[in-house]
């Protein structure tokens, strides 16, 4: 039985196309992926991301515990701020990528939908010996993302405050406020490369919140298809593609998320050694010189025809108007201008490494 968010009936009722994603029955598109994609780049789009995991971590050693399981410097996340981090295995592979929000007396940890059970077990297993309390709030809270350059101005109309707190919210800031009479956490975070917000509030209020946010103005309901193409252009990692249990942060170009000098944490020793030696393979962006569209899992060969890597994500980029891809290749071939072949339908198609990101994020900082 596939799991459903509190907005399942709303999506079906509004005519969204539903698909299975990581054990969830989710909308893949409403009006069309390109249409939704461009709405977020140019205006605003609304996503139901209630399938993601939301865990609370509190207690005297909440910070110390997160510092021990996450790769980022949790001590540097000030109250009311959030940061990106990784849960790493002792061998350096990635358990998941997460967002840690520093709230009053507790932390909110947001994890990938497909990894919810695994991450919960991982946190439970590693919190032994720490004076902390974990609570899974994934079912009690819904989670929406309102993304795009118009998001701030639209959401400000929904905030029941004369001080318009959210317009003062810094990049990655998080605050408790009231939206359409509903208590909600609002964070200036997202997964699209645009300015935007993520909202956390009582699950029961989700259908009304969804409808009222859409009614604010020119807000397009969006599905997971546009969520994927929007995160692809600014090269934001997707678990199971750019990162996984067998891909380490240095290979994924996420070395900046690994703070080796912050003290001990799970995976630190191995990660320090990997950093010192340098990764043997690395993600690179590429464009196709020949014709075709590269997709995830397609093989990558050297120009001499040797299998050397794999495409992690590939698609026609709606904003840039051409097929682009990300591939995991030997480090020597991961710099701009390198040539390799992507095997598209049994035929090698020449590709050229290009800089990532393909689309420069337009965050409001």
């Amino acid at each position, binding site marked *: 039985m596939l799991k459903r968010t509190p907005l399942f009936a709303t999506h079906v009722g509004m005519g969204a196309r539903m698909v299975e994603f990581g054990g969830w029955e989710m909308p*893949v598109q409403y009006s069309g*992926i390109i249409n939704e994609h461009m709405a977020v780049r140019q205006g605003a789009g609304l996503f139901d991301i209630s399938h993601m995991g939301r865990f609370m971590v509190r207690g005297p050693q909440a910070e110390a515990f997160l510092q021990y399981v996450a790769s980022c410097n949790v001590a540097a996340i000030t109250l009311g701020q959030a940061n990106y981090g990784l849960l790493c295995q002792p061998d350096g592979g990635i358990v998941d990528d997460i967002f840690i929000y520093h709230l009053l007396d507790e932390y909110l940890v947001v994890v990938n939908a497909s990894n919810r059970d695994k991450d919960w077990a991982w946190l439970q297993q590693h919190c032994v010996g720490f004076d902390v309390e974990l609570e899974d709030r994934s079912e009690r809270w819904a989670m929406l993302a309102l993304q795009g350059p118009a998001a701030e101005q639209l959401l400000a109309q929904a905030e029941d405050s004369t001080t318009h707190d959210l317009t003062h919210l810094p990049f990655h800031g998080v605050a408790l406020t009231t939206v359409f009479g509903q208590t909600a956490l609002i964070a200036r975070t997202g997964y699209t490369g645009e300015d935007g917000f993520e909202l956390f509030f009582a699950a029961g209020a989700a259908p009304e919140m969804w409808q009222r946010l859409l009614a604010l103005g020119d807000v397009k309901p969006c599905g997971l298809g546009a969520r*994927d193409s929007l995160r692809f252009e600014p090269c934001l990692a997707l678990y199971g593609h750019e990162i996984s249990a067998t891909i380490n942060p240095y290979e994924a170009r996420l070395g900046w998320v690994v703070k080796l000098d912050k003290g001990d944490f799970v995976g630190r020793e191995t990660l320090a050694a990997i950093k010192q030696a340098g990764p043997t393979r690395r993600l690179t962006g590429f464009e196709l010189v020949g014709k075709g*569209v590269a997709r995830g899992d397609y093989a990558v060969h050297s120009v001499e025809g040797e299998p050397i890597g794999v495409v992690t994500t590939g698609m026609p980029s709606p904003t840039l108007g051409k*097929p682009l891809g990300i591939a995991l290749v030997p480090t020597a071939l991961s710099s701009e201008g390198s040539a390799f072949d992507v095997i598209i339908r049994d035929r090698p198609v020449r590709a050229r490494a290009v800089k990532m990101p393909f689309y420069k994020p337009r965050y409001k900082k």
Partner: protein
Amino acid sequence: MSISIPGDLRYSTSDEWVRTEGEEVVIGITDYAQDALGDVVYIELPAVGTVLIPGESFGVIESVKASSDLYAPVGGEVVAVNSDLEANQEPINQDPYGAGWLLRIRPSGEEEPLMDATAYAAYCEERAH
């Protein structure tokens, strides 16, 4: 959403349509297929003169989300290609049975098993669940 299935065409299990026009046939993808694919952004079609073998892939059609093979519903020689689609693929989504046509073929007589509109409608309905 309702799917358009014209009564005068024949249909393959891989969602191509076949229209007989005198000695030749015109083929394309169905409304069901374009709807399932989403916005088409790229298409690769064979050159005029190519001989198609029924059931074999003759090209590829790409949306943001997925790649799909195109399979020949009938055998024969390609006599015309809808070259307008190279620059703009929108007709495939907007008008799959008209301006979105793909190939004109001089048929060899060999065919995949094809369905009439009623059978194809049932076939689409079946997959909607």
